[in-house]
């Protein structure tokens, strides 16, 4: 298990290759990458987090996924600070012997990470800055698990 919370950019491709090579007994690797969408108006995004709690919360979520599915490995990287359009915000990767577990676990990690890890996004446009509101559907997504 590899959990990282950092301000620095990361190379998603290099992380995928490293992750896939680490456990040769995994037949299936799923990744999710979240990017700052370039929708024209956005200047940059600011991600605030709760330093004392973040790594702990991510570790708990990853442990839950590992307890529930037959996984060989889990990776979570989440950035904070100032991010520009097109930049990677975060990434999860799951490795398993079979594809169903790898898919379900990555999907689960994203749902939990979205609503249970202490990050808050603020979008800065030409008109000012606005905190991103949590969606009811994000909270509802947790009921799937």
């Amino acid at each position, binding site marked *: 298990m590899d959990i990282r919370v950092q301000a620095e950019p990361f190379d998603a491709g290099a992380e995928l290759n490293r992750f896939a090579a680490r456990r040769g007994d995994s037949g299936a690797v799923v990744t999710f990458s979240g990017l700052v969408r370039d929708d024209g108006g956005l200047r940059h995004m600011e991600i605030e987090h*709760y330093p*004392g*709690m973040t790594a702990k919360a991510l570790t708990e979520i990853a442990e839950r996924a590992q307890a529930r599915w037959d996984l060989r490995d889990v990776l979570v990287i*989440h950035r904070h600070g100032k991010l520009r359009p097109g930049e990677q915000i975060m990434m999860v990767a799951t490795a398993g012997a079979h594809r169903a577990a790898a898919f379900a676990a990555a999907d689960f990690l994203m749902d939990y990470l979205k609503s249970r890890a202490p*990050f*808050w996004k603020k979008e800065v446009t030409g008109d000012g800055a606005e*905190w991103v509101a*949590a969606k009811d559907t994000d909270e509802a997504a947790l009921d799937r698990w």
Partner: protein
Amino acid sequence: MTLDVLYFAWLRERIGLPRERVETDAATVADLVAELTAREDRYAVAFQDLKALRVAVDQELTDFDAPLGTAREVAFFPPMTGG
């Protein structure tokens, strides 16, 4: 007891500070919120709608009716928007 009370995101902006030390005898999170709310308008405004807020005691998510016990750190914030 002495608590570190932390605020994040728009709650931090409305209250105007990221953390403070609070002397309190509050038995629960809700008691602590009542004490803060009684202090000044900016707290009352910030804590107006508890349904729009989340709380962590000693870095674990919990409910507003949770006991504070021997807690050392209480954090208030809006629903998280990671990922």
